[in-house]
């Protein structure tokens, strides 16, 4: 059973209906550590030693965050800057994260339809996530497509329930065995057949 570390960053978690639903649904799962960065480091002063130790103890890293301005909240960027140190995470001697799996779990206000060359966001989510993908790759990790909850502004309670159930299922699948073959060239991990009762 693989160990999952959820690096959760949300500057105003108490006001986020969607993220509360997702986090509350999975928080008691075994071998899942939810690391609430904004709660842990309200002053942005990240304890690098503690973070590295956490990474060492887990096999799968999920960057769980709202998709602010096509990217992550500032504290998560701070985390990337500080924790993924030269010669530890990357660089000639940096191999601490070699072979781990990494993905983003994101929530977006806009719907899936506007994230394309014709939509008003002009690019796909996959394109926006490139920096994260390359960060993972440089650290020797395997990067999976994102789990995305989209159109949150207009999300019905039923739809939200489906999303959170799927998030839970995804976690279970990841812990057992989910590999690159399972999602082929899908842009979202949400779309794999195991999560769609096909």
């Amino acid at each position, binding site marked *: 059973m693989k160990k999952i570390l959820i690096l959760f960053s949300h500057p105003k978690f108490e006001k986020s209906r969607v993220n509360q639903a997702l986090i509350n649904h999975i928080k008691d799962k075994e071998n899942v550590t939810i690391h609430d960065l904004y709660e842990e480091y309200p*002053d942005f*002063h990240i304890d690098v030693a503690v973070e590295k130790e956490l990474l060492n103890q887990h096999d799968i890293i999920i960057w769980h965050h709202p998709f602010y301005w096509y990217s992550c909240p500032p504290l998560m960027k701070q985390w990337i*800057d*500080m924790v993924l*140190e*030269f*010669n530890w995470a990357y*660089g*000639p001697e940096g191999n601490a994260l070699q072979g781990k799996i990494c993905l983003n779990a994101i929530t977006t206000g806009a719907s899936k339809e506007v994230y394309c060359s014709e939509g008003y966001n002009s690019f796909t989510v996959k394109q926006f996530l490139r920096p994260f993908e390359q960060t993972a790759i440089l650290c020797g990790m395997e990067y999976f497509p994102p789990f995305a909850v989209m159109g949150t502004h207009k999300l019905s309670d039923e739809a939200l329930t489906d999303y959170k159930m799927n998030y839970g299922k995804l976690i279970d699948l990841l812990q057992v065995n989910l590999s690159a073959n399972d999602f082929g060239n899908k842009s979202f991990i949400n779309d794999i057949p195991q999560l769609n009762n096909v």
Partner: protein
Amino acid sequence: MTGSILFEAIVFLAGAIICVSIAKRLGLSSVIGYLLAGVLIGPYVFGFIGNEGDDILHFAEFGVVMMLFLIGLEIEPKNFWNMRKTILGMGGIQVGGTMLLSYILFTVLGFEWKIALVISMAVALSSTAIAMQTIKEKRLMDTTFGTSAFSILLFQDIIVIFMLGFIPLLSNTEDNASAENNSEHTNLLDSLPVGFQTLAILLSVVLIIVAGRYLIVPMLRKVAKTGVRELLIAAAFLIVFGISFLMEYVGISPALGAFLGGVVLSNSEFKHELESTLEPFKNLLLGLFFMAVGASINFIVIANSPLTIGGILIAVIVIKAIVLFLTGQVFGLKLDQKLLLTFSLAQIGEFAFVLLSFAFGLHILSQEQMDMMLVITALSMSLTPIISMINERVILPRIGTKESIKRPMDHIAKSQKIILVGFGHFGSTIGRFMRSHGVEATILDHDSNRVDFLRKMGFEVYYGDATRLDLLESAGIAEAKIIICATNKIEVSKAISKIVKEKYPHVELMIRTKNRYDAYELLNLGNENIYRESLETSLTLAKDVLSKMGFRKYTLNRQVQNFIKYDEDSLRRLASEPKSEDNYIFKARKELEQQEKFLNEDFKRGIVEYDNHWDSEHIRKALDNKEDQ
């Protein structure tokens, strides 16, 4: 005879321990315990102590002397000067008014005018020992009542000199020799004409001031250099005894001389050293003094004329109370402060013993009259703590600042109750910030003005001493989640910490401390959440200084956070180190050693070198090294 001295000591100590423990357990002041112990071991109950009461009393007066010496240490001449209006005004009104009323009373009772005058002088005095002990115990020194009481007592201590000088003039006999004066010290002044007497008194005062500057302080420095702890104790005693001897020699009250000596030394670097050395002795000797008072209550005199004694006793207390109340009125004290003042100073003081026996020695008073007045004095002293308690538990809650005002509790206060102890500068900031988030703390404070104001603002406030278990309980400690000690008095925090750990271990304690040494103590009591008020603020200032010198603010911010973390770690590490003795000089030296250690460590650890984030130079270096290999 050592056997009997030992036995007496055992009786006194055992009596004190038993009675004071019981008194404290019942939430009474320790003074009651001591007095009761005195009564019990005295000649009329168990009779362990016979007529030595007077000798013991005489010895125990050193307690009073030491107390005044310590009070003097607390007062820097500047403050004394600032308080002159209160001292003269309040003290003057109180002494004058009381003397006038009691003079009328005793004349009406048919005493000769001279006798009435002497007695009214004695009655005008209050007991510094009892009142100050109680004020200190209840930590009310910084309230309006505390300063008022202190001013009045100080005025009385000074006026006693003039009274002692005046009484011989009333003497019926031509020869003023107080040979039969039952105080057995020679009084240099009796054989001198009046002008010389005044001169001698002035000279001795000057002598104390000069000696304080040019003799005592250099001596203490030499003693401190030797590093022998007990020499300091010896020196402290030598100062007190020396001043007392000199004062008795010229016929001034030794207590006043000691007070003066204290004031002279209040600016020296040995202030704290002397305080911490004498404090335990003072308390024990004061205890002995109270026991001696208890033991000297002459129950035979009472039995002979209970009604007269009782009547006079009540009349005297009433007179004193009325005058005190009016004094408070004139100086605009709030009602509860007035009541505290009224009831805590309504007794006749220990100087009355001196005055009365002095007057008896001069044949102004008869044996009978002296005995009667001595008994009344002792009784009035014994009644004080009881009256104060009635005031505190019955009267004040009804008319003064109420200890508590019932309010309907909203649900959040029930499930997540926060108790905030102390609403001064520190506590008020906490309270305001919490309130802006809709979290109402229950506040405990002992400043009645503040309590009234906070109640007006709609806070739930309890008034009184936060170390009292019953007050904490009525404030709802049982259902509290957190109790915040925002007071800067470590004794209060320590006491609360003990109570909470013992009785309500589920309540989380969050404590403000002044400095690392207080933090050590609280850490060692098993507290986790310690907030040093001297840490963040000073680092913020330092950060701003460095920023003005060109350092980048964000880097400094991070360094401050690193520094705090590493200082917190070292605090916890050092808390378990053996404690430095509780004495100022050695403590100061130890502090310097520790500072030196810190400064060395700060360099060694290279706290600034540690921070390589966003530092491209560091990466370049690492890559260059790689290529070199």
